Structures are given as structure tokens and as C-alpha cells.
């Protein structure tokens, strides 16, 4: 027993001394191991040796701790702050050669210590095995794996002991430096017009020309980390560096212009500098190619995700720019096909729409326009239309709440070519290839929208071989209109609104020219079926018939046979008429009043001639409809007006008589005095007539002015849809008057506000009519309200007057 104890004590002493000194002088140790083995202690030896080697390594690490801290400091000093990376980093100094050299040196030393100790351990254990052929299997296993176990313990020891600093941080900073140097060299080379590769250069044909010896330390650090068994730590660091580099490059370099593809250059870039870098840090040899390929896929995926996220964040503006933004849309399409971002896409885009579009400050026509662009843009991204359902749902729900939606859609569909937005919608109408009689299926409610969202959650990209552009244009062309019409859930509503707008437009025409309306009608017929648009068809035919009849009526001479005996026939060359098939038109406003006798005579002459051509049919006049072009000479001025028949009739009465008591003129025209006044106000505002009130008289006297008056107008009354050839400023003020209640309301709620606040609040909250005035226009109008003593202005603050 004493001999055994002595041998064990000897082994303890020698192993600590020998392994601590770096593993030299193995002879003494071998001897001690032999004697311990001879005493039957073989199974205890490996644990003793392992413990001694670990203790020795810990001691070595403690010595190196100071150096590692200095290296990390040296790296950190030049890396700079993450936050101001973009520009701040540029100013920082580069990687100092001595810092890099000492990093390699420390790693090399650690590696040597670990490897030599492991080697010694393995040799000693083999020696025991040779000396003791008969051993329990468990003991054999311990002896065989001692070297390996030490490696593992050493890796853990090295990883866990860096004097409070993180290896990950140190490596990250080092790799970041090297990648930055590489990427700058690549950029410089590209700017210099040299082509990518320097075949015989430092990097052996992969990547830009680097200074001789540049790559070696980088390869060494990566290789040494591998040898230390810390490959995972190292890989984590360079992976993070490469991703950060890619991301920064995409964020900074993608100028985010929507009219250029971002994805393809990004993918190309990911395959250049980052791969060159990875080639250096990955192990060499055959495994390297496979690893590089794997990394290539990983980087591509990262690019798809990053570009996808960036583009998705801009989706609202991309839609605004459609179709110029098609390249950005194609980016999104490709990114969604290669990633899992569709749910994020739906969420982000919905939120952007909610925040930027679906609020009281947005004009209905803008919302519709954006909706139309979204439909078209999404058709490129997702031809199956699942995402449109999810994204469009809130827009449709919102539009359903706006009263003027149908009217806006119809206006846009039927508007003049000058309006670009409307023109695109009109063109869309012509795109209808599919005969969508079944567009009822598009009449969705809130429930359908919710279903669409669920559907989008399950979204899967189309197979790549399906040609998305083709599928989309065909499916979507029909869609845009149905989706718009479907907002309200009924095509009957839409058609009836269309009819009433068509009536307005046709009745405003004096030239019978309705080519555009005819084209629109033809397109609507394709879409909704002829039967549903029969009324509109008759209305348009009425216009064409009216034109012909008008010519025929006027060519009937007053001396024609059936008319000869009639008296009171007058010249009708200044008269034209639109003749309606009343049952096919919507209810039209009626306003009975007496026309001036000379006008009555013209109408009845016209009627008689019509009857001579069309008997037994006859005409029934609608005196309040139509329009009158008149020339007023007042003083030295001659003005042209285009006004309603009522307004014209009022004025004609002043042609022969300078003044009329209100009651008398009202009686002459067959209307109540207050209705008369509403019309007279227009002429007063034009400075053509004036009113005065004698004391004790309830009703005023209207008088024609000898000169055109430009003084303050009578407030309150708006002109009734008249087009003025004169008086633009007045008209502007009258337009602004629509906002007066809002301004007054705000100043009631807020006591005092500066001009720009009023302006912004109007923009935000007023949509009916949409507020589209400039700050200057508002200022001019507010000044007028101040002049009228409705408001006060003090120190830039407007207040309501008590």
C-alpha cells in the first residue's frame, strides 16, 4: 500500500510540473505513469492527468488575459459605434497591423498549449494501454478518449475565460474590419473601372486585388479558432458581420427609387464581396465548395428578406407611383416568392393604408385612385388575388361609409380625358375582356373581406412557371371595375347613380356631342348587360335625335303649310333644344316660373314646327332646364354669361325697366319672393343688380346698376352651378365660403388658432367638399372674414368675434 501511495504522490507532483511547463520533458512523467500503472492505479491515471493539464491551461489563459483585453481594445477603438456606422465609421482608423498580429499570436499560443498537452495525454494513455492489456472496457474507453476529452474541456475553458470580454465581440470586431477593408478595395476597384478579379493577386482570382499578406492572418484566425474547437463562436461572428454588411449596403445603397430593380443588384452583390470573404474564413478544400454553396443560398435568402422588408415598408408610395414603380413591385413579387413575408406584407400595407389614406382628410377620389392602383399593383404580386382581398378590405369598408363614393366612381369612369386619374380608370373600363355579367360575385361585404384576410393567411406563392404577368392582366382588367362597383354591394345602385350623372351631363350640353358618353355606355353595356343600361341608351339616343330634329325644326319656314294660319311665329335661330323621352330619364328637378314673353314665343314657335314634323307628338317644355348664353352691356362694359334660364329671365326683365319692386317681379315671374331673391342674389354678387329696402317695407326693390359694381357682395347665397366668364376672385371666395362653418366651428372649439393650424385642420378633417386650397388662399379668405368682422386677428391668432 505504501508503494502505491508513493507512486500516486509522485504522479501528482510530476504531472502538475510537466503539463504546466507546456508538456516538454515527457520522460519523467512517463516514468511516473508507469509506476502508478504498475501499482494497479491505471484506471485513476487519466483523470489525474486531465485535471493537471486543465489546471495548467487555466494558468496559461490567466497570463494571456491581459493581452486579449488589449487586442479587443485595439479592435474596438477603430470599429466605431454601431449607431453612426454609416459615416462615423469612415473616419475611424483602420485595423492596426500589430493588433492583428498579436491576435494571431495569442491564438497560436493557445492552440499550441492545448494541442501539445492533448498530444502528451494521448501518448501517456496509449502507454498505459500497452502496459495493461487486460483492463475493464470502461477503463479502456477512458484511456482512449482522454486526448479528445481534454480538447473539449480546453475549448470550454478558452471560450469561458476572456477576462470579462466576449470572444464573440472580439471576433465580430475583427471580422468586421477585414470585411470592410475587402469591400472598400472592391469598391475602389470598381470605381477605378477595373474589373472584379485580380487573377494572380492575393486572393487568387477571387475578389479584388489586396495587399500581399492581407489574407493570411484572416485565414489563420479562422483556422486557429477551428483548431481550438471554437468554430461555432467564430462562425456566429462572421455570419453576423456578413449579414450586417449586406444589410447596411442595401439600406444605404438602395436609393429606394421605385423605378429600378433593387433585388438583382443586391443578389449579385451578395455573391461577390461577402462570398470572397467567406471563402477565406471557411476551411479550404473540397468541403469548402459545399459550404460556400450553402452560404450562397443563405445570403440570397437574407437578401430576399431584407429587400422584401424594405420594399414592403414603401408599398404605399410604390402604389402611388404605379405604374412607374413596376420594378419595385417586381422586387416584392420575387421576394415574396422566396420568403415567408406575405403575412408581414399584408399587415404593413394595411397599416399604411389605414394611417395615410383612410382618414377624413383624404378626398374620396384619391382613395379610389389609390385603390385602383393597389388592385393593379397587387395583380403583379399575387395574380390569384388572395392578398388583394385582405388589403383591399379596409379600403372598401371605408369607402362604403362615404356617401360620395358611387358618384366619384361614376365620375371617374365617365370623366373627360383631361383628368389623368379618371382617364386611367376610363381606359380600365375598356380593358374588360371577360364578359363579367356575373360581377355580382364581386359584391362583397365586410364578411367577405374577413374571409379574404383568412385566405391571405394561407397564401402560397404561385408556382414559378406560371406566367404571372399574363394571368394578372387578364384577370385584373375585368376586376378593377367590378371591385369598384362592388364597393357598395349592388350594381343597381351603381347604375342608377350613373344614370343620374349621365342626365346631368347630357342636360348641360348645348352641342349634342356625346361621343365619349357613348363609348362609356358601350363599355358599361359589355360589363353590366344591355338590359340594365337600356334607359341610358335611350337617353343618349335622345341627344342624337335632338340634334337631328333641331336642324329639321329650324329648316321649317314660318310660311310652311300647316303653320301659315298661325300667328305669333317668331325667329328661332337663337334657340336650340334637347328633347327627352321622359320615361327613360331619372326624375329631373322642376321649377315652375313664367318665361319672358319673347322667350315663350320662341318656344311655342319651336313647338309648333316640331308638331308639324312629328304630329301627333308634341313637346312639353321644362323651363328651368337648359342654359342661356347672354351678353350684357352695362355702362361701357360688355360681359358674357352662361346662366340658367331662370337667371336669364330675371335679367331680361331689367332690360326694359330699370327697377322692380320684389313683389311685382315675383308675381310677374310666377314665383314666391324668397325664391326670386335667391336668384337675384347671383346678379347682385356680379355687381349687375342692387337691392334697396324702403323703410316700412318688408320686401326690397331691385334695381339695375348703371355701372358694374365691384363692392362687397351680398353674403350667404351661393351661385347655383353657373360658370362665370368673369369675376374669378369672387368665385374663389364663394368656394371658400363652403369651409366657413368648419373655420367657425374650430374657433369655437379652440378659442384662438394661427393660420397654419387652421389650414392643417381643414386639410385633415374636411372632405366634403375636399379642402384643396393653398395657405395663401385661406389667408386671403380669413382676411375677408376679419374685414366682415366675423373674426379678429391679433398676434397671428384668429379668434371668433363675440
Amino acid at each position, binding site marked *: 500500500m505504501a508503494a502505491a501511495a508513493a507512486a500516486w504522490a509522485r504522479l501528482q507532483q510530476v504531472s502538475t510540473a510537466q503539463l504546466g511547463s507546456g508538456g516538454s520533458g515527457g520522460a519523467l512523467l512517463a516514468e511516473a505513469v508507469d509506476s502508478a500503472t504498475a501499482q494497479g492505479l491505471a484506471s485513476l491515471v487519466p483523470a489525474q492527468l486531465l485535471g493537471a493539464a486543465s489546471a495548467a491551461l487555466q494558468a496559461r489563459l490567466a497570463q494571456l488575459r491581459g493581452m486579449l483585453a488589449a487586442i479587443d481594445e485595439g479592435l474596438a477603438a477603430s470599429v466605431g459605434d454601431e449607431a453612426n456606422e454609416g459615416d462615423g465609421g469612415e473616419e475611424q482608423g483602420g485595423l492596426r497591423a500589430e493588433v492583428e498580429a498579436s491576435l494571431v499570436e495569442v491564438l497560436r499560443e493557445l492552440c499550441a498549449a492545448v494541442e501539445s498537452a492533448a498530444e502528451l495525454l494521448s501518448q501517456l494513455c496509449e502507454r498505459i494501454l500497452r502496459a495493461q492489456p487486460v483492463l475493464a472496457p470502461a477503463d479502456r474507453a477512458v484511456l482512449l478518449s482522454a486526448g479528445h476529452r481534454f480538447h473539449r474541456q480546453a475549448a470550454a475553458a478558452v471560450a469561458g475565460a476572456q477576462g470579462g470580454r466576449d470572444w464573440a465581440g472580439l471576433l465580430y470586431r475583427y471580422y468586421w474590419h477585414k470585411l470592410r477593408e475587402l469591400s472598400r478595395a472592391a469598391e475602389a476597384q470598381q470605381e477605378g473601372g477595373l474589373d472584379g478579379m485580380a487573377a494572380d493577386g492575393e486572393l487568387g482570382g477571387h475578389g479584388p486585388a489586396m495587399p500581399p499578406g492581407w489574407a493570411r492572418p484572416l485565414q489563420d484566425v479562422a483556422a486557429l479558432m477551428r483548431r481550438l474547437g471554437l468554430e461555432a463562436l467564430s462562425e456566429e461572428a462572421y455570419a453576423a458581420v456578413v449579414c450586417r454588411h449586406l444589410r447596411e449596403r442595401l439600406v444605404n445603397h438602395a436609393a429606394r427609387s421605385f423605378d429600378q430593380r433593387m433585388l438583382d443588384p443586391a443578389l449579385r452583390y451578395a455573391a461577390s464581396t461577402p462570398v470572397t470573404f467567406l471563402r477565406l474564413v471557411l476551411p479550404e478544400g473540397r468541403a469548402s465548395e459545399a459550404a460556400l454553396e450553402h452560404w450562397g443560398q443563405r445570403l440570397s435568402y437574407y437578401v430576399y428578406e431584407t429587400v422584401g422588408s424594405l420594399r414592403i415598408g414603401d408599398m404605399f408610395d410604390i402604389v402611388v407611383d404605379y405604374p412607374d414603380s413596376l420594378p419595385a413591385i417586381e422586387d416584392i413579387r420575387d421576394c415574396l416568392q422566396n420568403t415567408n413575408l406575405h403575412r408581414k406584407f399584408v399587415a404593413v400595407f394595411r397599416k399604411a393604408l389605414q394611417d395615410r389614406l383612410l382618414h377624413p382628410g383624404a378626398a374620396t377620389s384619391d382613395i379610389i385612385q389609390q385603390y385602383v392602383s393597389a388592385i393593379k399593383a397587387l395583380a403583379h404580386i399575387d395574380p390569384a388575388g388572395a392578398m388583394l382581398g385582405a388589403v383591399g378590405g379596409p379600403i372598401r369598408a371605408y369607402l362604403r361609409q362615404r356617401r360620395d363614393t358611387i358618384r366619384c366612381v361614376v365620375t371617374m369612369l365617365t370623366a373627360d380625358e383631361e383628368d389623368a386619374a379618371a382617364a386611367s380608370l376610363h381606359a380600365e373600363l375598356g380593358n374588360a375582356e371577360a364578359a363579367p355579367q356575373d360581377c355580382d360575385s364581386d359584391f362583397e361585404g365586410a364578411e367577405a373581406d374577413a374571409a379574404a384576410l383568412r385566405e391571405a393567411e394561407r397564401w402560397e406563392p404561385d408556382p414559378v412557371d406560371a406566367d404571372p404577368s399574363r394571368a394578372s392582366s387578364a384577370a385584373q382588367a375585368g376586376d378593377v371595375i367590378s371591385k369598384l362597383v362592388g364597393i357598395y354591394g349592388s350594381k343597381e345602385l351603381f347604375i342608377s347613380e350613373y344614370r343620374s350623372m349621365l342626365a346631368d351631363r347630357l342636360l348641360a350640353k348645348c352641342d349634342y356631342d356625346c361621343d365619349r358618353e357613348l363609348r362609356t355606355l358601350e363599355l358599361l353595356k359589355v360589363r353590366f348587360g344591355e338590359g340594365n343600361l337600356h334607359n341610358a341608351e335611350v337617353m343618349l339616343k335622345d341627344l342624337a335625335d335632338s340634334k337631328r330634329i333641331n336642324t329639321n325644326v329650324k329648316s321649317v319656314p314660318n310660311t310652311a303649310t300647316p303653320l301659315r294660319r298661325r300667328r305669333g311665329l317668331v325667329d328661332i335661330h*337663337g334657340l336650340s333644344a*334637347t328633347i327627352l323621352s321622359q320615361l327613360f330619364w331619372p326624375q329631373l328637378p322642376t321649377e315652375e316660373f313664367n318665361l319672358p314673353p319673347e322667350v315663350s314665343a320662341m318656344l311655342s314657335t319651336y313647338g309648333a314646327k316640331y*308638331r308639324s314634323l312629328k304630329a301627333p307628338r308634341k*313637346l312639353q317644355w321644362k323651363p328651368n332646364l337648359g342654359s342661356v348664353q347672354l351678353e*350684357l352691356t352695362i355702362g361701357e362694359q360688355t360681359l358674357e354669361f352662361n346662366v340658367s334660364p331662370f337667371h*336669364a329671365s330675371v335679367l331680361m326683365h331689367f332690360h326694359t325697366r330699370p327697377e322692380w319692386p320684389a313683389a311685382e317681379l315675383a308675381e310677374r315671374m310666377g314665383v314666391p319672393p324668397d325664391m326670386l331673391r335667391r336668384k337675384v342674389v347671383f346678379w347682385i354678387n356680379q355687381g349687375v343688380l342692387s337691392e334697396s329696402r324702403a323703410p316700412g317695407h318688408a320686401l326690397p326693390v331691385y334695381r339695375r346698376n348703371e355701372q358694374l359694381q365691384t363692392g362687397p357682395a351680398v353674403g350667404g347665397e351661393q351661385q347655383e352651378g353657373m360658370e362665370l366668364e368673369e369675376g374669378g376672385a369672387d368665385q374663389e371666395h364663394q368656394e371658400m365660403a363652403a369651409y366657413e362653418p368648419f373655420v367657425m366651428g374650430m374657433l369655437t372649439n379652440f378659442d384662438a388658432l394661427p393660420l397654419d393650424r387652421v389650414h392643417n385642420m381643414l386639410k385633415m378633417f374636411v372632405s366634403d367638399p375636399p379642402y384643396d386650397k393653398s395657405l395663401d388662399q385661406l389667408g386671403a379668405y380669413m382676411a375677408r372674414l376679419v374685414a366682415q368682422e366675423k373674426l379678429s386677428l391679433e398676434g397671428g391668432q384668429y379668434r371668433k368675434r363675440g
Partner: protein
Amino acid sequence: MTFDVKIKKWHAVASWTWNAGDDVCGICRMPFDGCPPDGKYPGDDSPVVWGVCTHAFHLQCINRWLQSQAEQKCPFCRRQWEFKQAAVGGEDSD
């Protein structure tokens, strides 16, 4: 001193009517001023005619009726149907 209103152009709006008293055609029950079931446009394309018995129908309607009957009688009063000459316009004022 001058105050002169000159009408350069007066564009008026009117509707036409067959002036056929009863609102609907007794055969097709559609308004006279509309069109019969197989007519596409009202007015010229869907004329209204009177019999000497003073009953009025769409031309298409009475023709179809007469063709379907052995005897040419007014579907209303069963009197012999005879087209009344259209009234010459301009005589009666509106």
C-alpha cells in the same frame, strides 16, 4: 346709361309625348311614351296609332293583335278597326 341684355343662345329642354290620353297601351300595358315589349326605342320606333273608334295602341301591338284575329276589330270596343288619319300638326295649339 346703357343696360342691354342680348340673348345669344337659348338652349331649352323639353320632353315629347304622344298626347294619347290614357297612360298605357291597352294591349301591352306599357306606357305610350315608352316602348312595347319588343321595341327597343320609344318615339319614332314605337309609334302610337288611333282607330276611328278613338282607341289608341302601339302600332306594333295593334298589328300583332289584328294578325292574330280573324276579324279586324278593336280589342277594346269590338268595333270594326280602322286606322284614323293622323292629325295634321300645327292646328291645335298646346
